[in-house]
Every structure is written in structure tokens, then in C-alpha cells.
């Protein structure tokens, strides 16, 4: 850092010969940078707000394209009179004209009320809040693990690219990446939950808890239930971080500044950690944040195979009715999470690479 700022000061002095006073130089530069960053942040925040509003509006119309009558779908196969159906339509507000439904939805959404679910007769906010912890826990832990693992292995692979380790690493990661997650999940259930041959059944085959434990035993119980789904998500997911990290580090490998760093006498390990990796981080950070954005959406397939009570399952179930308020609410939440993560990544870029945002 100190090496970067020294030439900056020198350049300032050279580039700006008409100075009003000797002490004004550095102050102007700092204020200018701060204003620049603030402008950059304001721009990004404004963009995020506009996107969020657009999503709020889109979500209403998008899901009304799905064919199907929610009332008919919900009552199918059950003796139901025409009067009962009419009452349900009235309860759901489906008897109102479209524009009226839309204005009511907007008015409510602005106050944070996402409506009431058709099938569960409960506020959508409550339903989502009920399932968010499970999804955040599962996908959050998985993303954390596979990002770290991918970063680490990717760095190793690139640094010794072409070697046996690199080939094995990339080969295994790519193979696992091309495996369908539901299939891998089922395989893990058969091998590690039911048990095959000498391998005993060690893990539960589904769910998030057995429901009998409390306190710390409960935490352990949840952790026990999490092992197989997390392993599935990590196995299928870590390849992307690995590959992106590997290729962006490879791009940096031939750079002159690395030779300079080595010429300064830095150890190979330090050259990698202090010089190469930070410069190769930008694309990987984007990738990690996009993955974090996906955390909220969960993983429908893995949640289904392991009967994990998360948002992915709720979304699928709501789509099949279609339970419009729930689908709309989830869409806003998923998109919101994505926007938020992108925003965070945008805000982080200038800190990682000072060239961004100037």
C-alpha cells in the first residue's frame, strides 16, 4: 500500500503545478476520492432501489401469466360446491378486477405486507420468515465452505498449473460439477444413510431435526441432519469458484510485478498471497457474491431430496397451485437478496481494487 501512495503524491505534484497553497494538495486529493466514492455508492444504491421497485411491479404480472385457477387447483379431488369456490375467490380477492388487485398489492407491499397465502391461510411474510432460517443455514454453510475450498484449491491449482495436483484437482472438481445434485444426494443417502456393505448408515435420510432434542443436543441434531445435504451442495458447487480463481490467477502469473516481488526477495508463498491472489480476486468475489445471492433461493433439488424445510420447497409448492401471494413474495425476496449481494460486491470492489469507482 505504501509503495502505491508514494508515486501518487509525486504525480500529484507534477500534474498539478498551479497550486494555491502548499498544504492544499493532499487534502483536495482525499476529499476528491471520498466524494468520488460517495458518488459511486449513491449511484449503486439508486440503481438497486430502482431494480427493487421494478421487481415489485414485475412480480405481480409475471406470475399472473401462469395458467391455472388457484381455487380449482386447491379444491380438486375434494367434494366442493360452487358456493364454496365463490367464497374462496372472494377471500383471496380474485373476484376483483386486475387493476384493483394490482393497486391493493402495491399499497400493501409498500407497507411490508406481502399478502395472505391461498393454501396456508397465513401471512406470506410469516411463511417466508418461518423457512428462511433453514435455507440460510443450509445454503449459507455450503456456500461458505465451497467458496473457501474453491478459492484455496483454485489458488493451489493455478500456482502449480499443469502439475499432477492441478490435473487431479480440476478433474475431480469438473466431474463433481457435472453430477446432478439430486442424484448425488440420493447416492449419499443410500451409501451413508442406509449403509452399504461395511459402511454403516450414519446419517439421517432426510429432514432438519428429529424433533426430540433441545438445547445443545438440538444443535448437534441439526448439524447431524445437515452433513449429507451440505456435502452434496459443496461437492457440486465448489468447482465454479475453483475454476474462476484458477483462471484469473493464471492471468496474473506472467505479470512483471510478480517478478519484481520475487526480485525483492519475497518468498514464493508471500508472492502468491500478497501480490498475485489479491489481484486475481475480483472475478472470484463477484462469483462468491452471486452465490451468496443464491443462498436465499436455496436449492430446490437438494432441499427436496433431503426433505429440508426451506424456501426452495415452498417456492415449488406455491408455483404448482399457483399460490400467487407466496410466489410473488418469494420472487421479491429472492431478487432482493440478489440485488443486495450485487450491491455489496459493488461496494466492495473499490476497496479491493482502488481503480474501480474512480
Amino acid at each position: 500500500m505504501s509503495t502505491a501512495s508514494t508515486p501518487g503524491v509525486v504525480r500529484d505534484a507534477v500534474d498539478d503545478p498551479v497550486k494555491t497553497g502548499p498544504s492544499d494538495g493532499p487534502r483536495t486529493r482525499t476529499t476528491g476520492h471520498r466524494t468520488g466514492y460517495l458518488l459511486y455508492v449513491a449511484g449503486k444504491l439508486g440503481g438497486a432501489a430502482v431494480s427493487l421497485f421494478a421487481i415489485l411491479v414485475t412480480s405481480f404480472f409475471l406470475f399472473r401469466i401462469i395458467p391455472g385457477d388457484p381455487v380449482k387447483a386447491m379444491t380438486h379431488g375434494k367434494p366442493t360446491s360452487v358456493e364454496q369456490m365463490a367464497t374462496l375467490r372472494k377471500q383471496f380477492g380474485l373476484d376483483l378486477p386486475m387493476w384493483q388487485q394490482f393497486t391493493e398489492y402495491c399499497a400493501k407491499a409498500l407497507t411490508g405486507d406481502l399478502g395472505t397465502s391461498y393454501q396456508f391461510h397465513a401471512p406470506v411474510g410469516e411463511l417466508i420468515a418461518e423457512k428462511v432460517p433453514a435455507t440460510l443455514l443450509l445454503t449459507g454453510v455450503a456456500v461458505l465452505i465451497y467458496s473457501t475450498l474453491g478459492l484455496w484449491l483454485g489458488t493451489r491449482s493455478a500456482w502449480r498449473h499443469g502439475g499432477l495436483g492441478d490435473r487431479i484437482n480440476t478433474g475431480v472438481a469438473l466431474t463433481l460439477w457435472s453430477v446432478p445434485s439430486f442424484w448425488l444426494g440420493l447416492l449419499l443417502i443410500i451409501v451413508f444413510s442406509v449403509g452399504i456393505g461395511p459402511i454403516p448408515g450414519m446419517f439421517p435420510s432426510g429432514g432438519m431435526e428429529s424433533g426430540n432434542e433441545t438445547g445443545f443436543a438440538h444443535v448437534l441434531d441439526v448439524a447431524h441432519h445437515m452433513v449429507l445435504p451440505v456435502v452434496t451442495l459443496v461437492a457440486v458447487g465448489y468447482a465454479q469458484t475453483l475454476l474462476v480463481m484458477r483462471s484469473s490467477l493464471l492471468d496474473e502469473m506472467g505479470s512483471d510485478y510478480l517478478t519484481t516481488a520475487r526480485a525483492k526477495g519475497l518468498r514464493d508463498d508471500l508472492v502468491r498471497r500478497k501480490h498475485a491472489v489479491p489481484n486475481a480476486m475480483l472475478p472470484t468475489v463477484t462469483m462468491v457474491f452471486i452465490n451468496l445471492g443464491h443462498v436465499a433461493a436455496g436449492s430446490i433439488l437438494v432441499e427436496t431430496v433431503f426433505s429440508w424445510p426451506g424456501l426452495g420447497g415452498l417456492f415449488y409448492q406455491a408455483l404448482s397451485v399457483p399460490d400467487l401471494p407466496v410466489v410473488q413474495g418469494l420472487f421479491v425476496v429472492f431478487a432482493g437478496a440478489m440485488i443486495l449481494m450485487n450491491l455489496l460486491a459493488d461496494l466492495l470492489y473499490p476497496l479491493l481494487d482502488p481503480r474501480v469507482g474512480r
Partner: protein
Amino acid sequence: MVTRIPPRTTRQPTRQRSRFRHFLASGAVATAMVAGSVIPLGPLLPAAPQAQAAPLTAPRTAPQAAPAAADGKKVLTVAVDQSIDSLSPFLAQTLVATSIFRLTNEFLTNYDPKDAHTIPGFATKWASSADKLTWTFTIRSDSKWSDGKPATAEDAAWTFNKMMTDPNAATANGNFTSNFKKVTAPDATKLVIELKKPQATMTALDVPIVPKHVWEKVDDFSKFNNDKKFPIVGNGPYVIEDFKVDQYIRLKPNKDFWRGAPKFDELVFRYYKDKDAAVAALQKGEVSFVSGLTPAQAAALGNADNIKVNNAPGRRFFALATNPGAKAKDGKSFGNGHKALLDQNVRKALFHAVDRKTIVEKVFQGNAVEGQGYIPPRFDSYFWEPSGSQTIDYDPAKAATLLDKAGYKKNSGGKRVGKDGKPLNFRILCHATDPNDKAVGKYLQEWWGELGIGLKVECLDNVSDPWLAGNYDLAFDGWSVNPDPDFVLSIHTCAALPATAEDTGATDNFICDKKFDDLYAKQAVEYDTAKRTDLVKQMQSRLYDTGYMNVMAYPNAVEAYRTDQIKSITTMPEAAGNLWGQDGYWSWWSAVPADGTGEASSDSGSSTGTIIGIGAAAVVVVALGIFFAIRRRSTAEDRE
């Protein structure tokens, strides 16, 4: 290539490494905190008694031979996949929810497990007045609510009155009370229901009776889901103790149940959203029972130890429906159904070219019965078969003759063409989620293709839109039939048609036939069982002859349970019936635990050792990782 110069100082890496360690440590703490705050703190309500009953340390000292739950509870675990939409009997529509209400609340009547005839439930006997308009039910005096209060006729009267006066309480079961004029309870054992017009289904009122003293406190029935306070007061064989959305529903036996308490200590409905995972859980012994198996799953489980596959006659029919020209009650036609299908000969020809035997053998792989009448043979009193001359059997030659007769001759290209010279091409609506629809569709394409008829199989995720709009020629149709057939018959009456083309009616397939309607009206008021049965059979005969519906098969209910957990259990029908979705609580109420059971409950307790093992393994892996990372670094340093 690169000249490596030895480091000038060792201070920097040390500082670097310790900073790295700090970062690691703080990261780990932060992760643990996040995880801790995110993990819900478990079933807090029943926590106190259960914590005492099932201490975590118990399994460690428990003998290896008996891997039962710490307290040796006999748990019956049933795998389910459908979400509970509500625990309020006034709102719930899903089969899982309504099946659970059967276990927790008495209905006025019940169905005999042998042959599904009506037997006493909450009511011990019943009688109708001479004018058929007043029904008097005698309510049993030995039924108590699980909170100790007596269950009386007053509770039943309140339940029905609530549904009659509050539209929000009528959403789930309002159809049962739409013909009620007045419901009173003159005393604790007498319930009097006055009707607007006679109703033959009065002994099939499948409405859970709720405790008045609990439910009268509810303000808004459209929003009350009954899932916040446990246990839920009921008077059935089981009481709901705990519920977690899409995770489990836990029930305890009602020791005071008048018919006798269930034998298991606990009944748990546990969620397995994926059927293969549920099958794995059954193999492992995590669950005692799985339903809705595919032929492949049933075959795989057939050879497994301690597992019995139950392949029982189902309550569904799988049929072909033809669009009879969609119409509204106001007489207006709509939709784009093929005109050729209005000709009875064409419809008959299509049905003659359907080989039911092949469908049962190839598509259902033997797990179905060839279709005949509308009501499945499981309900043997109402089951009807076409007589010899009436039968539309598999006869492609006859089909060809019928088509010739209808004016659709084969052209030189082998295609049937109408008088207008246009080839005969039909569309069939298929459920994209149902593999049977798709497979049968392929066979129909082949069979009808040989006749010279083209068929386009339109598989959609949601078939209800084109169906309700009458935009189809044929469709795959299927309904689950109740012991009382009134509803499945009512959906083919003119009264079920939509009021206008813009409305939605209760109709299944837009059928409107005067003769069928007359018979329906007669059976609806016929209180004599034998006479009503005869009328129902006549209706099926008429439905068969009009040829708008043709039942191809009655799919079996294929399910499996662990014999080392369940010693005996009552099927319905008793001789060779199924366990899941019975009309009554017979299966779960009658189930007797096997000796030495416990695998079912092992999930709750036996995990401690495993968890410790896994924890140790995780620590070892992390430690090894760090060790190798550091070693690698030091080697690099040494090298430099």
C-alpha cells in the same frame, strides 16, 4: 527461471501468520455465532417433559442390543410428502390434513373396515322422520375431549351451526351443510338436523366435530390455522402434540378413547419430499410406513428383509374423457372440442380400440385392475360391470366398422377422413407430471393410428385452464371415490355445469344428460340402501352407454411397511385393502407394535455416538488440513 533470494527477515511472515490465525479464529467464532443464531431452538413447548424423558446421555449407557429410544417408546412413523395447509378442520383441503382429523376428531359416523358400510362414530344410532326431512342422531355419552370435558351433542350442533352461519367456516366442508335448515341439540345425547329437502348422504357427513368450548373463542375462521397451541383438544384415537411445518406432526394416543387407546406410544408423520429418500428411510428403519410406491420401488422392496409390500385395490379410477361439447347452464356453447366426438359411434370406436389388458400389464406393470364401471370394485356394494352385450371390449375390427358407419372411411393413405375430406385428428390433454398419462398416450397413438386416426398428446403442467375452457377433444381423467358415491356422480349432472361460459362449475367433463340427472335426483333422496344402490348402478350403466367417459383401469394403492416395527395392522377392506387414506382411523388405531421394535425411534436417540464420531472426524480433518498447509509452507520456506 526465477531466482529466489533468501528472506532478509523472519519477522514479517510470523506477524503475517499470526494475523492469519486471528482471522481464522475470528471467522470460526463468527460462523459459530451465525449458525447458533440461525438454528431454531427446537420444539420449545414440549421441551421440558421431553428433556427429562429422553436425556441425551441415555443411549450411551443403553445396551447395544436394544437401539430403542431412550425411554423405550414404541413409535409408529409414517412417511408423508404433502404439506399440511392448515390444522383447522374448517379450512384444510389436503388429504394429509383431512386424514389426520380422522384420527383426532370423531365424525358422526364411521365406515366399517370390512366393507365400508356406515357404522356408529360419535353418534351411536340415527333415524329419519317420515317426511325424510328431520334426522335425529343419538350421541354417545362415553366420549370425552382430551382436556377432560365431556363431548356432547352440543359440540356437534355448534360445529354445524358455525359452518351454516359463517362463510369463513364453510370453506372446507360447507358442501355437507348446504341443505341444512336447522341444527339443534335438545340434550347432551340428542342431535336434531332439519333439512330443506331430503338428502341420502346424511349418514356420510365426513365433518370433524370440534369442541365448542375451545373453538367459540376463535374470532376470524378464515385466518385461524390452529397450529400455535399444543396439544390440540380432540376426541379421536390420537391427539396432536406437536407440529413443525414440512418436518413432522407428532401425535399421542388418547388414553380415554371410547373404542380403546391405540397400542403405539407415539404416531409421527414425518416429511420425505422425495419418494426414493422415503424408501431409503424405510429400508433403514427410520420410518415404519411408506405409501404411493412406483412399480420399480415396490419391486425393489419386495425382496427386502422385514418389509412387507402391500399391493391393494385402490379407490381411484383412471379414465378417458371426451369433450361432449362444453356448454354452460345458460345454454351457450364454448370451447373447441372436436365435432366428430359428438357422434356416439366415433367415441365407441375409440374405446373399442383401447387394450385395457396391455395398459394394466405394461403401463401399471400389473399394479392395477382392468377398468369397467365408474366406481372401483373396492366399494363392492356400488361396483357395477357392463353386461355382455353392453361391454365395449378391445375389438379393433369393430372399431373400424363403427367408424365406417359414422362416415369416416380410410383414404388411400390409410387416414380416416370425414365427409368434408379432412383427416380425423384428435388432441388429448395429459398431466405432464403423470408418467402413466404419457405412457398410455403413446399406446393410444399407436392403436388409434392403426385405425387411421391421428392423436396429439398435449402434456401440460396445468391442464385445468384448457379443460375449464372446453379447449380439448379428449383428456385423461381420474377421481378418488368415497364410500358414499354421491360426489363423484354429482360432477356429471347438468346442475354442475358453469352458470355462464365465464364461470367455473363443479362439472368434471361438461356431461349433461337428462336420464342420468333423473336417476341422480332419485338416489339423492332414496333412504333405502338397497334401492339407492340399484339406482347408483343404473347411473353407472347410463354413463357407460353415453360413452363420454371410459374407465381404463383402477390403479392399486402400493405401499410398504416394516414388519419388525408393526406386528399387525388393519387394512380396509379388511380382506385385501390398503392402509393410507382409509375411510376411518382403522390402520393407525389398530396397529400393534412388533416386539423389540425401536429402529423407528432410533433416529431421535442413537445419534449421539454418531455425532460425537462425526465431530471427532471433522476435527481430525480440519487439523490435518491445517497441519499440511503449515508443513507445505515451511517446506517452501526451507526450500527458499
